[in-house]
């Protein structure tokens, strides 16, 4: 529990003076993401910059330092009957909230409860000039100035060092249960979307190994009544199953070296006709694919499904691993990088080779 923001600021200023680069590292559990890290760069260690700065359960808002682990945050929330509804994946005990936001990672509940990006209300950020800035705040509604806090989601730390985050938190649902049914993938895509269009307390929907899983959470009576109306078997270990999906501990994800592709596409879109294994999550909006392929080929398929693809884990990471950007957006993002980090100190080349 320490505020190291001053030391972090000094390190950034020093790197700037010495024309050095910095890799920002929290718990070090997401090193596999993005392009390979620049080996010449120094390390900006966030793991000791921890602690809950402010937490008012009644306000549904918590402010934490970026190096705080997800486990510590969730433990503090659980004491008050609250939780992070976006169900952030824990890739290891050290996973931090700062890394979660920088990588924009959310779990199975994401289509219904929103993502980490959706729940961010404000951040403090060290930019490449070593300026410690505050954006957003601790209130749900705030339209003063541009939404620099949410801009960080998915930027992989290329714009600056997130030092503090204010998040919306929510009550833990009173009851939860999981229904499972045998179903082919195409039928399951349709089924999950049709169920989502019903005003029922659905909070997760995925398909793997010929089975579709739906989770219901909320008021006990509502969950039970819906389970009775919808067909499917209630599984005993529902919670453990979703935990394994959230943390990518499900056996589908076991081989950590093989290329794992992530498709973020329209949820009912017809699945690309590709040989290989698929895990469909988020009622179809997030699809995991195991197979050897070229990014450029998969981009064509992702676009046809209304979305994008990235090489999430494994494989060669020296080339691009993220869906390509059209020129106009590439230019805007390069200028944006320039405006936050004019000397290109942070996570060089991690997001795209050109950034």
């Amino acid at each position, binding site marked *: 529990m320490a505020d190291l923001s001053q030391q972090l600021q000094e390190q950034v200023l020093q790197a700037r003076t010495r024309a050095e680069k910095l890799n920002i590292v929290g718990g070090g559990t997401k090193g596999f993401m993005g392009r390979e890290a620049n080996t010449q760069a120094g390390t900006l260690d966030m793991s000791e910059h921890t602690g809950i700065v402010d937490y*008012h*359960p*009644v*306000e*549904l808002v918590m402010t934490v330092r970026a190096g705080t682990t997800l486990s510590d945050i969730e433990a503090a929330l659980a004491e008050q009957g609250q939780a992070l509804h976006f169900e952030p994946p824990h890739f290891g005990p050290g996973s931090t909230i700062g890394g979660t936001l920088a990588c*924009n990672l959310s779990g199975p509940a994401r*289509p219904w409860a929103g*993502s980490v*990006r*959706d729940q961010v209300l404000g951040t403090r950020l060290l930019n490449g000039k070593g300026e410690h*800035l505050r*954006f957003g*705040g601790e*209130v*749900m*509604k705030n*339209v003063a*100035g*541009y*939404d*620099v806090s*949410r*801009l*960080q989601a*998915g*930027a992989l730390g290329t*714009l600056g060092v997130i030092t503090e985050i204010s998040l919306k938190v*929510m009550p833990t649902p009173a009851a939860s249960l999981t229904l499972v049914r045998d179903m082919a993938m195409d039928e399951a895509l*349709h089924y999950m*979307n*049709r169920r*989502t*269009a019903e*005003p029922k*307390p659905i909070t997760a929907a995925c398909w793997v190994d010929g089975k579709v899983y739906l989770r219901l959470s*909320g*008021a006990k*009576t*509502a969950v039970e*009544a819906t389970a009775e109306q919808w067909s499917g078997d209630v599984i005993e270990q529902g919670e453990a199953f979703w935990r394994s999906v959230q943390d990518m501990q499900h056996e589908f994800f076991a081989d950590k070296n093989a290329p794992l592709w992530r*498709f*973020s*596409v*329209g*949820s009912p*879109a017809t699945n690309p006709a590709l040989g290989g294994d698929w895990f469909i999550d988020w009622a179809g*909006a*997030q699809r995991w694919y195991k197979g050897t392929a070229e990014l450029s080929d998969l981009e064509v398929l992702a676009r046809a499904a*209304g*979305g994008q693809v*990235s090489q999430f884990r494994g494989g060669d990471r020296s080339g691009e691993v993220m869906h390509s*950007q*059209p020129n*106009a*957006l590439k230019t805007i*993002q390069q200028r*944006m990088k*320039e*405006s936050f980090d004019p000397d290109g100190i942070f996570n060089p080349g991690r*997001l795209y080779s050109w950034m």
Partner: protein
Amino acid sequence: MNGSFMTNKLKVSQEKLAEQFRVFIDPDYVITDNETMKPYECDGMSMYCEMPLLVLLPETVTQVQRVMRICHEYGVPVVARGAGTGLSAGAMPSKEGVVLSLAKFNRILNIDPLARTANLQPGVRNLAISEEAAQYGLYYGPDPSSQIACTIGGNVAENSGGVHCLKYGLTVHNILSVEMVTAEGDVVTVGSDGLDSCGMDLLAVMTGSEGLLGVVTEVKVKLLPKPEVAQVVMAGFDSVQKAGDAVGGIISHGIIPGGLEMMDGHAIVAADDFANAGYPREAKALLLCEVDGTEEEVHEHVAQAESVFRKLGATSVRTSQSEQERALMWLGRKSAFPAVGRISPDYYCMDGTIPRRHIAHVLTEMQTLSEAFGLRVANVFHAGDGNLHPLILFDANVPGEFERTEAFGASILKMCVEVGGCITGEHGVGVEKIRQMAIQFNDLELQQFHDVKAAFDPTGILNPGKGVPALKFCQEYRSLEYKQHKHEQTEAAHG
């Protein structure tokens, strides 16, 4: 970038510009005469007006693109405009610039009931989305009070909310992508049909950017299944403090209401006179707590809410028993603005947000300020998300009264920031609150905003002079504040 705004170099006359636009836009919609341009001189914040150089009503994205290219070439300011219902003068024209009205982009292009999305042109009215989606049992979440008239393009520009934000979020949570024309005239799609995209979240930055970063020409929104049931539990209290505590009580019970609104004594009476909503007129504070969901869930939560309110000192508790009764309860709240308009020649609506726990303190202080400024104030409050809408009552015909009103408003916003809130929850900064930006942000932060703007719009032609103040201007404002503060201290010491 030095953070100063570009001013139109005006390398080209009104007539020459108009001539160029008439080549590709129907000449009837290239407006240059003052009489026809008059309605465009302001938005819903009519205290701030300016006549533009000319007004354009293009009909296609290609036309918008060509307009942007020409304006970019000549350095002519462009102010995009939807329905003009904005409350911060964000669509006030630039004297030497073009007003780009998107009124003709008013078609719902597609609704996909299975994906639960709608493709919309920016001039589609907010309420029209839900009306059209109703046939599929779906609706669009954000419902600003102006939803009959305001458009989705404006909603994106302002990141509009409404009364259901705590549970269903703001515009930023309910859109998937926008197609926009950049300042340089490129057409790009930001976002996708997927729930997130690779790279920086430019969609988040676009949302709420008040027309300073791009011109939105299409929006893809998410639709939600219409809840099976919704019921309103209405509770009267004899103090604001008790009502505030009751809000906390509901949340502590793990209930996230669909809507949770508070009104103070003045607003209760005005709204009840206007709408005959059956409000407890003697109450000092009123809570409207809407619970929605499945039948079972609503049944369970309504019982809990009623019991929480009674336990926390409600003087009256009533739950809507029919759709008509629920609609009537909301009608009072939704007509609070016109209702207040009836009891005063003019009113000025503020939009600060505060952490909810400070509500009693802030309302008490506001009463003190009200007496000091000699101006009445009625309060409606999105209690669920902390967004305050104090309505300051004044008479614009009384010399000096609007200036006093603005000063009162500025004091309220300052107080919001002091308790950890912000100067605007959903109405935007525009021109109106541009000075108060200097209270909420320091110069380094404001400079970063200017740099964000420059990444999208390097020559600064989009809606110049709005949203983010020039730094020079802030120093002047802060030093004025400081002098005032010193003066007050001296007065106090002498008094």
